[in-house]
């Protein structure tokens, strides 16, 4: 009896505060299921792993080529002289800089942003799939996250190339250094947070 009275008082206070402050935590229940059941969870993770593997294989094989094409078109539109090559199987761009020198840009998987995409996928696999929410919704968010990452890689590399077109080949490494790792992780966290808020909405009903 004592327990029930105290608990209700505590909740009443909590609701009072929650009502007064924006975005306050909602009353939580320690017995609520935060994850799917073990079996469901395993199935989701396994299915998620399959989706991830398939998506990643496609990206691995095709994205450097896509990036080569897309960057080639973007830079040509900016009236930068670009040649596409396939040196030792790695798609590359050779850019003629404003000072007449050439910048060779092999689009390796590391440079293409596939590392951050992998990080996003792994985070997604173990910390997202087991949460409540439709499997296909999660798959859709995963693919959307991939697109965001790859879109960002396109913008980042095009920007770095354009800057080095004007400032010289040395500028490419500087811009790549400054924009690469930090902003790459920024999109991973941002996309992950968005998915999380969607799944929390689902959990709250």
């Amino acid at each position, binding site marked *: 009896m004592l327990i029930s009275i105290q608990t209700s*008082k505590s909740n009443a206070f909590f609701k009072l505060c929650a009502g007064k*402050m924006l975005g306050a935590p909602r009353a939580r229940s320690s017995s609520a299921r935060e994850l799917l059941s073990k079996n469901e969870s395993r199935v989701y993770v396994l299915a998620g792993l399959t989706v991830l593997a398939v998506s990643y294989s496609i990206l691995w094989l095709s994205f450097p080529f896509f990036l080569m094409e897309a960057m080639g078109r973007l830079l040509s539109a900016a009236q930068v002289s670009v040649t596409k090559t396939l040196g030792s199987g790695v798609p590359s761009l050779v850019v003629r800089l404003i000072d007449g020198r050439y910048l060779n840009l092999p689009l390796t998987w590391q440079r293409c942003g596939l590392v951050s995409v992998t990080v996003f996928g792994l985070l997604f696999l173990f910390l997202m799939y*087991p949460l409540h929410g439709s499997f296909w919704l999660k798959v859709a968010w995963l693919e959307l996250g991939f697109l965001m990452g790859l879109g960002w890689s396109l913008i980042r590399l095009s920007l770095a190339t354009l800057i080095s077109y004007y400032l010289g080949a040395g500028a490419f490494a500087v811009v790549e250094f400054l924009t690469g790792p930090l902003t*790459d992780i920024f999109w991973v966290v941002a996309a*992950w947070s968005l998915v999380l808020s969607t799944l929390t909405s689902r959990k709250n009903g």
Partner: protein
Amino acid sequence: MLVLILYFIFGFLVAVMSMYLMRHYVFSFTALSKRSDQPLYSLHGLSFKPTVSVLIPARNEEAVVGTLLHRITELTYPKDKLEVILINDASTDNTGRIADEFAKTYDYFKAVHRGTDIGGRGKASALNDGLKHATGDVLTFFDADYYPQVDIVEKLTSYFVDPEVGAVQGRITVLNEPTTLVSRLVALERIGGYRVDQLARDSLGLIPQCGGTVCAVRRDLIEYLGGWDHEMLTEDTDLTFQIYEAGYKIRYANEAECYEEAVENWRSYWRQRHRWAKGHMQCFFKHFLAFARSKNLRLREKVDGLLVLGIYFVPILVGLSWLVGALIFFLYPVNWFYSVWILLPVFTYSSAGNFASFFEVGTGVYLDGRIRVSWIIPVLLLSLILNVFICSKALFDLMLSNVTGKKVHNWAKTVHSGGNSKYC
């Protein structure tokens, strides 16, 4: 030769940060997947109600202390087993007068006044004075800006049925969260740190910490330990490790919630974190060997404890790894390095973003059923960058004070505005 040294340093830094990353990942998964099996109120169905002394150290806290004292009168714990001691630490405002008024009105309140000759030397010193006047079997402490649940004492003390439990820590939640970006970020840190980190450590039998407030400790234990070490800027971390080394354990009570006024601007954030960082580093040097050699601890507890002790060094390592990474990137660029380099921020952000990784914070947010707050998780990067400088300066100051022999450290008090009262 230089390149080998650089690679070695870089590899070491990545290994350290990977350890923290894995630790936070395990905590996140544990918090998600383990059902909360924490007892509410009483283990084994017993109604265990020891006598309790509530200690409230306060220095120039007139804006907030009245609200807390009033709240204390509303606690549901039996008043004949409760004693409230407000330690007025040489305040120059009305804190002492407010304490006296409550002591006159309620017979279970005591006001202890510290003069300017002994006051103002930090929280540990004030708590030691409070300890001399305390008679309860269990001591509970609150900072003056806190606002506890009415049944918090029951929730905290119930764990003391277990004789191995030396202390119990409750959950701290930020009440003035919507005020500024800084208070929102601090709220996120608290969510990650308590709802996930502390809870997982409790569930996994690792090293939950005393937070220095919203914490209950056995009086005989703290007397055995000789009270609080007043040379320590983070007396709570020091107490945590002393308790473990003495063979006791600390439990975390997630249901025992208390609401705090978080810092609201970057200047206050800097001052508070600088004190925490410096104090934590003091604890590292004081406890590292003793904790590693302790016979009262299992291996996993030692590993977790040592990682906790080192946590304020991680932002410094982050800064260092970025520096070394930049050198390698520009001086000896190789393709394989780019992939490691690009992973580095993941480690840094995850391990040191706010001393709880972004996915740990996100997990806490999910468990709390919060939605919009997760949108600002990426902004935690700001506090990561700031913490690199804060912790580096704290280490520098600590080394400087050791070199110059100045062992007395200034206690940078956090100023509270009392803005919380609009929520209470």
